[in-house]
């Protein structure tokens, strides 16, 4: 039901704006012209006198125009004046131009690693707020960019536990930040400028007012000060929202509410969200379609839920129609005999996505109907030139030629098919009989051929022997960073041919820098994450099977956390805030939503941390909300530190639990809760899950779970649980070097490998049956930058590879010290007889384990952690290097097929 009324009208039916409390105000600056006395202005809260650096100027709306030299930097203000724990900072402001260091109101020093005080400011794109609690600063960046020249009310709040930023009264970002505010000995009380001991960057913009409160204002107070009606709290999602493009110009948004009642989506090309779609479903499961969307346009939207107490709002989300990959709908005639035939073909083979090859173009209606009833790209091959012309003309007139159906010419319909091997999902033969050529072009495993002249006989092609999957962050539940894929014996770049190339491109991702979750591959499908979005491709031909925009999907700095998804042949399991979604691998339909432990959710706001399928159990961990890393802007979010800096702290869980996937239970079958578990160590093998936890009292009683202190490395235990029951099989106290840079655990039949990195790598091996240590080694970092100091070891064929060395896992024996030299931040992965990594000239390289020789693909750049996946009998590189503006990288997704699998292709 489309409603053309504005969001404002819809809201005012239900609410009238109310004013918030104004208590607790410390400084209240009003920059209107009449408030100035020459260069001077006095705050209305406590009478603090300030002096501008030049006579104030004003814009047409009365805003004080700031910029060089018109700013305020008050000296001599004692830090004791400002709140030590609860505070709110607010500004009514216009930013005319973003900049790297942007300050609106601050009392701060930011000098290298010495970061103290607080700052409400902005960067090139977004507002931000940070406070220091003694260590690295705690920063929250608004999740949507500001528009230069537009007036905003920006509010930063801190309550000793969380830091939040609001834009125009709406929550725009929050993060965990515990402790008291740590102040510098002195700082400027700076207004309209980013100014400290070393920096002085005037704000190019206008200020109308600014305030500092010595308490953390409640959300409704902040909303009221922005003229917004109160909210009864953020919307509570039973199913967190997702957006799917269903046709050109159409997007469907689905979400579930925890209460019954109407919901709505307010949306628009601007932040005004001028249009609205109402969802009247009463069961709490909502779905609305936004239609008439312009191509290549950015839209904003938010979800509104009516409850008895009032309205609840989601944050404002964003999507771009440039990323609409949906297949163009085809008009057809369902009564046409060709429609009946096409339906029978699709029903019998059960395949309707990817590439459909029709051998023979004599029946254009069949081609059209096959396209209409599926999401196929339909390609017909034909040798008769007249037939090619007439069929193309018919398809062109029907408006499907080139978009859904095409015809390519061949010399002989019984001879070579000029397409690459292993790429056809469904082959429809009008008259040609089964032969090597038909078998050659079929996708191994999932591909089918149907022979119409033989009564619809169906041929399937077996999966390649030696073909492997990459089901978890590091390949398998054991985190070995290798797949069982033999790659057809390929060990160098010359052993591969390009199998497919195309989308997603660089506009899909966040950036190459923030150490994103790895793509995963199972059942011939490649899954890849981008900027709050995910996509599924057919591994063998790059066909886009489905794509979802998921506003709450983001996890970065994976080396200090764990992946947020895993897969098997049928399903994709994705951690999204407090939920785990079970998606159909083929269609992306949400089959089930599992919740992180309900009691922890209600008490402390936990999210789903680790996710892994171990045996038939989906293992999860619970992490306190906002513990995980999500920020990606700036050099700091490259997370390349050497310990002690922000970005090397470990994300830790409070519990581990297992959902039996067979039982269909809504609660986990077991819960383990004892210590604080380091996410980067959770690994599985057989029916066991292994991890490292600390039982240090100080850590246990601390409220935060992004941990870096020395206590984290004390009172540690290595634990093995039975994955079916959650029972402890064994546990061993652990004494290792501190993993201040990285700390990994890997499980393989030959042993458990623990890697701690601080000033060098320390490797510890344990017997997986008992947890008893077997050997230990230390080795120097290959480099102290570009991940050289926290590369993730690869375990393949019983050998551990950690540049430059290889050790036999069973014994610790050194087997090589000539591992191909990495020159960039992508970590190593292993498959068959090779390691793949970012090598020579920072290009994707292969190191032949046998010959120890290196080959590279020129101008092919991987991401800064892991996006080069050996699986499905291929080497798959979904785009992850985009954003690097300094090089001529290819910036495309690409799949390589070992030439050994190309059969008789010419």
């Amino acid at each position: 039901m489309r409603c053309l009324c504005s969001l404002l009208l819809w809201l005012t039916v239900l609410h009238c704006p109310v004013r918030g409390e104004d208590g607790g105000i410390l400084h209240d600056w009003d920059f209107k012209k009449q408030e100035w006395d020459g260069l001077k202005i006095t705050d209305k809260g406590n009478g603090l006198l300030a002096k501008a650096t030049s006579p104030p100027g004003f814009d047409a709306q009365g805003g004080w125009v700031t910029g060089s030299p018109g700013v305020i930097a008050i000296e001599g203000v004692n830090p004791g004046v400002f709140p030590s724990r609860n505070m709110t900072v607010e500004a009514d402001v216009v930013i005319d131009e973003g900049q790297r260091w942007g300050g609106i109101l601050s009392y701060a020093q930011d000098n290298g690693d010495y970061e103290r005080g607080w700052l409400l400011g902005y960067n090139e794109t977004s507002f931000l707020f940070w406070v220091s609690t003694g260590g690295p600063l705690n920063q929250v960046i608004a999740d949507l960019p500001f528009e230069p020249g537009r007036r905003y009310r920006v509010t930063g709040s801190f309550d000793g536990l969380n830091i939040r930023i609001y834009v125009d009264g709406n929550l725009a970002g929050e993060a965990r930040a515990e402790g008291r505010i740590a102040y510098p000995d002195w700082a400027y009380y700076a207004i309209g400028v980013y100014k400290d001991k070393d920096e002085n960057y005037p704000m190019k913009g206008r200020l109308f007012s600014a305030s500092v409160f010595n308490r953390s204002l409640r959300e409704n107070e902040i909303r009221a000060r922005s003229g917004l009606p109160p909210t009864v709290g953020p919307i509570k999602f039973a199913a967190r929202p997702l957006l799917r493009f269903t046709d050109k110009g159409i997007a469907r948004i689905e979400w579930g509410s925890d209460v019954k009642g109407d919901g709505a989506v307010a949306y628009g090309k601007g932040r005004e969200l001028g249009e609205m779609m109402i969802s009247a479903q009463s069961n709490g499961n909502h779905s609305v379609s936004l239609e008439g969307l312009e191509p290549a346009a950015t839209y904003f939207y938010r979800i509104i839920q009516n409850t008895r107490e009032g309205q609840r709002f989601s944050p404002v989300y964003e999507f771009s129609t440039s990323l609409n990959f949906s297949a163009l709908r085809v008009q057809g005639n369902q009564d046409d005999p060709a429609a009946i035939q096409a339906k029978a073909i699709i029903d019998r083979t059960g395949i309707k996505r990817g590439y459909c090859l029709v051998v023979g173009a004599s029946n254009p209606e069949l081609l059209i109907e096959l396209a209409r009833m599926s999401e196929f790209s339909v390609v017909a091959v034909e040798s008769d030139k007249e037939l090619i012309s007439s069929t193309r003309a018919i398809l062109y007139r029907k408006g499907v030629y080139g978009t859904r159906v095409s015809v390519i010419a061949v010399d002989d319909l019984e001879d070579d098919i000029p397409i690459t091997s292993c790429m056809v999902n469904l082959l429809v033969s009008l008259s040609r009989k089964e032969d090597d050529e038909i078998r050659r072009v079929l996708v191994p495993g999932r591909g089918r051929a149907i022979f119409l002249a033989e009564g619809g006989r169906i041929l399937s092609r077996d999966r390649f022997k030696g073909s492997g999957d990459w089901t978890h962050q590091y390949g398998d539940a054991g985190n070995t960073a290798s797949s069982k894929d033999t790659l057809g014996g390929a060990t160098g770049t010359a052993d591969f041919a390009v199998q497919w190339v195309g989308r997603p491109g660089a506009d899909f991702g966040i950036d190459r820098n923030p150490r994103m979750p790895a793509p995963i591959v199972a059942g011939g499908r490649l899954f890849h994450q981008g900027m709050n979005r995910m996509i599924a491709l057919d591994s063998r031909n790059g066909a886009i099977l489905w794509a979802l925009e998921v506003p709450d999907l983001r996890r970065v700095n994976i080396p200090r956390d764990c992946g947020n998804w895993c897969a098997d042949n049928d399903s994709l399991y994705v951690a999204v805030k407090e939920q785990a979604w079970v998606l159909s691998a083929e269609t992306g339909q949400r089959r089930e939503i599992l919740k992180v432990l309900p009691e922890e959710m209600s008490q402390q706001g936990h999210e789903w941390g680790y996710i892994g399928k171990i045996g038939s159990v989906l293992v999860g961990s619970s992490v306190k909300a906002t513990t995980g890393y999500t920020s990606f802007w700036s050099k700091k979010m490259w997370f390349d530190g050497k310990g002690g800096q922000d970005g090397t702290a470990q994300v830790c869980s409070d519990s581990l639990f297992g959902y039996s996937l067979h039982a269909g239970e809504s609660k986990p079958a077991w819960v383990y809760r004892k210590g604080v578990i380091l996410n980067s160590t959770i690994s599985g093998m057989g029916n066991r899950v292994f991890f490292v936890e600390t039982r240090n009292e100080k850590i246990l009683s601390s409220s935060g779970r992004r941990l870096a202190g020395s206590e984290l490395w004390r009172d540690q235990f290595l634990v093995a649980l039975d994955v079916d029951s959650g029972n402890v099989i064994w546990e061993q106290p652990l004494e290792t070097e501190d993993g201040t840079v990285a700390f990994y655990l890997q499980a393989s039949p030959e042993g458990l490998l623990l890697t701690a990195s601080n000033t060098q790598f320390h490797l510890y091996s344990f017997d997986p049956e008992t947890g008893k240590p077997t050997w230990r080694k230390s080795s120097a970092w290959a480099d102290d930058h570009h991940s050289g100091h926290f590369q993730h070891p690869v375990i393949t064929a019983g050998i551990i590879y950690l540049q430059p060395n290889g050790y036999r896992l069973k014994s610790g024996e050194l087997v090589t010290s000539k591992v191909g030299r990495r020159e960039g931040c992508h970590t190593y992965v292993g498959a068959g007889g090779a390691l793949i990594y970012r090598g020579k000239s920072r290009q994707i390289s292969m190191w032949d384990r046998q010959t120890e020789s290196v080959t590279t693909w020129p101008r092919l750049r991987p991401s800064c952690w892991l996006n080069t996946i050996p699986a499905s009998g291929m080497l798959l590189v979904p785009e992850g290097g985009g954003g690097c503006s300094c090089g001529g990288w290819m910036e495309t997704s690409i799949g390589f097929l070992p030439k050994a699998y190309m059969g008789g292709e010419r």
Partner: protein
Amino acid sequence: MIFRIAILELVMSCLAAGIAQAEDWPTYRHDNRRSAVTQEKANVPLSLSWVRRSPVSPLMAWSGPAKWDAYSGNKDLQSMRNFDPAFFVTASEGAIYFGSSVDNAVHCLNARTGMERWVTFTGGAVRLPPTIDQGKAYFGSDDGYAYCIDLKEGRELWKFRAAKSARLIPSNGKLISPWPVRSGVLVKGSNAYFAASLLPWEHSYLCSLNKDTGTAIYVSDNTNMTMQGALLSSSTTIYAPQGRSVPLLFDASSGKSLKGVSGMGGTFCLLTEDELLVGIPQNQKASGNVIQIADPSGTEAMLQFHGADRLLIVGEMAFIHQGKVLKSLNRAEYGRLQTKIVTLTGQVKGMTGELGRLRKSFNVLPAAKKQSEGKSAKTKILQLEGLMKASRVEISTLSKAVTKCFGWEIRSPAPYELIFAGGVLFIGGNGIVIAYDAGTGEELWSGNVEGHAYGLVFSRGRLFVSTSRGHIYSFSEK
């Protein structure tokens, strides 16, 4: 004074254009230098004659650029490979022609009515418009072939594939050759040139064929290239843009690879009469758009225009959109002055270093020697100081003169295309096409379109506009 002379020349050329015959627009951006300049005078205002609407926007070879470089804090990164954002048009003798990335075909429309005369299909997307030459159309396709067809019926006369392999691979829901022809076909003299290229680790081919027979004169086999976007040519050289790498120079007669143009990139390129290459930088490090001019024989860009979207060169004049304004510029004088400023600045820098060294040497001399040995050093210091002062004065004078190189300046929407038609500038914006008097900057006319107007062609009294929606508009003189 400088600018007045240039304006006078421009007015003269406009007058000449006024009596110029109706012209064809036979190839992408008019000619092999991709000048986008026709001497045919546009008589505005224009009115809409017809629109050919596409149900589907162009299916571009590559997706857009990354949203930002978050690490470096750069946003608004330039697109480096957007050579096919619209169905670009060529025009000849009452017909227009375009290639389609949607339906893998070349189309011929009646220029007056927009009615389709014929359509010729290929095995892959056609990303650049056909080049029209002596009754024939030449174009390339993603299927790996260069084609020649007749203009009357679109009948195939010959086709040529550079790669030995006929293998097709999937790409964005279509099939392409690993050696697609995404350079268009450039016709020069009796030859037709094109590139078949995609991946730097594969072979890339620059081909020269006899344009009448399609037989190969040479097939230049190269590696580590990604030739894409329309080829350009001077009298002796073929220029091949590469998108995310430097444009390449080839000897036209032999196909021998000569060099890359350092510091340049992208697929928007034009070649001036004095053999300067205009384009965008090689990388996206700069925040915001940049247009630069390079001497292909040199090692770095000569001039850079930050915040510039498009630049057009008509003789000594240039028209550039920078920030929010469109302005005219005596680019020859501007280039001369800027070159001198750069040279002098370099000299001053060198002298500053030398002066520092001399002063240091002088200061460490014992007092007794300062009178004797230090005398010549002091003389040198004084000489250098004098030279530096003079140089700085000259730089200041030149800098003032630079400002006089700019003529008119007007607020104007950001153009996706900029062409010149006998004294009239047309810019293609987002949803709009605007005509300006090239001599004064006065706005003469505007017309609305849907989408971004990436392609503009003026021929025989008609303006054809190709937009990002895949639509083609025809505006004609009233």
